[in-house]
């Protein structure tokens, strides 16, 4: 499956990647599988989306897809079919905490 992921600006510069990256992810396409593939492609992102020790999502980042907030979904739940099929991106979004 080719999954599309949209990164926040500061992570695009860190990874030297475009705003949207495409990743090959084996089914089932879950949050964990997508993030594992993302970190494997861009090792500089390790620890920046999920805490390197606990593996938990950083509190000021959110995961949106198909106009829904999937931030607090269990990481091994399947993402929406539209994300798994590449029709919609998984959006990694920094919280509006900068004023």
């Amino acid at each position, binding site marked *: 499956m080719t999954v599309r992921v949209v990164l*926040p*600006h*500061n*992570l695009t*510069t*860190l990874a030297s990647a475009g705003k949207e990256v495409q990743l090959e992810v084996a089914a089932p396409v879950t949050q964990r599988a997508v993030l594992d593939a993302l970190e494997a492609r861009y*090792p*500089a992102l*390790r*620890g*920046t*989306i999920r*805490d*390197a*020790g606990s593996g938990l999502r*950083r509190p*000021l*980042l959110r995961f949106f897809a198909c106009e829904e907030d999937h931030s607090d979904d269990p990481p091994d739940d399947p993402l929406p079919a539209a994300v798994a099929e590449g029709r919609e991106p998984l959006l990694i979004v*920094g*919280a509006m*905490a900068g004023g």
Partner: protein
Amino acid sequence: MSSVRVLVGTRKGAFILTSDGKREQWEVSGPHFAGWEVYHLKASPADPDRLYASQSSGWFGQVLQRSDDGGQTWNAVGNQFEYAGAVGEHRWYDGSPHPYKFARVWHLEPSLKDPDTVYAGVEDAALFKTTDGGQSWQELPGLRNHPTSAGWQPGAGGLCLHTIVLNPKDEQQMTIAISAAGVFKTDDGGQSWRPANKGLRSAQLPDQDAEVGHCVHHLARHPSRPEVLFMQKHWDVMRSDDLGDQWREVSGNLPTDFGFVIDVHAHEPETVYVVPITSDSHHFVPEGKLRVYRSQTGGDEWEALTKGLPQKDCYVNVLRDAMAIDQLDSCGVYFGTSGGQVYGSADGGDTWDAIVRDLPAVLSVEVQTFQ
């Protein structure tokens, strides 16, 4: 031909300022890591092309960067800082127990001999070490396991280990400072530690001369005399002539002895620089005047250095790691401000000029000297 390279960490990226030995014309590169807080950059004394940078963000956590070409290109290295063994607790601001939690790297201190070995002082207070050029980091847990650590309490900036001083004659001997726990030193490379705060007095403590709990802001020493340490404490400028076993106050005639930075002249071990700040509630310079104070007597007697610095309507701060000294014959002194200026003096502080005026708020300044 001599030259200098000034490494500047700011709230929104890093900048590298370079000049020849005259230090009159400067080139500015950056921002590196734009948009990220860069608490500290420092070069390896053993390999001047090897630089390390602490890049962090409230959103994205800690990233460690390494350059092998003097800051032209950078690569992210290891950013996993796991406390060793039981995490334990320290005291929170309200006095309640609070679990240690890694927040960021405040200070990077490369080994004097090995470019792959670096010490990292972090928040919550602990000391980490890499021996593989930053790919992996291991805590030296003897410090955080010190019997007093459950009582360490954060300063306003967090419970941070912000200063690491290596003894050039014996790198196993290190002195570190934590806000607000105080000074600790080790003789065995970080396995065991003892407090070194005798002579400090802090009105913020119920026991003003307690063994630990002092908000030490920064330490400095001249490499030729590793036993002599200078300290800018929350309040008070202090001096020790026996590697921290005993401290005495040398604030003398300073207009205020609150401040953050302190540093020592490259060739005159008794010449010391501070930037007095009005108070802990007014984090800006007194009377709207930016003045560096220099003592040529190892403290007690201070003179204001003002030529080239703003002497009206100036309300900036200068943070603890934001002053550096070069090694050229006519000693250069540099500092950065919360207003984004980096000032330099090529004559030991007699005259100053702004190298840059409009960077993001400056967090740290280091300098490399090429002779």
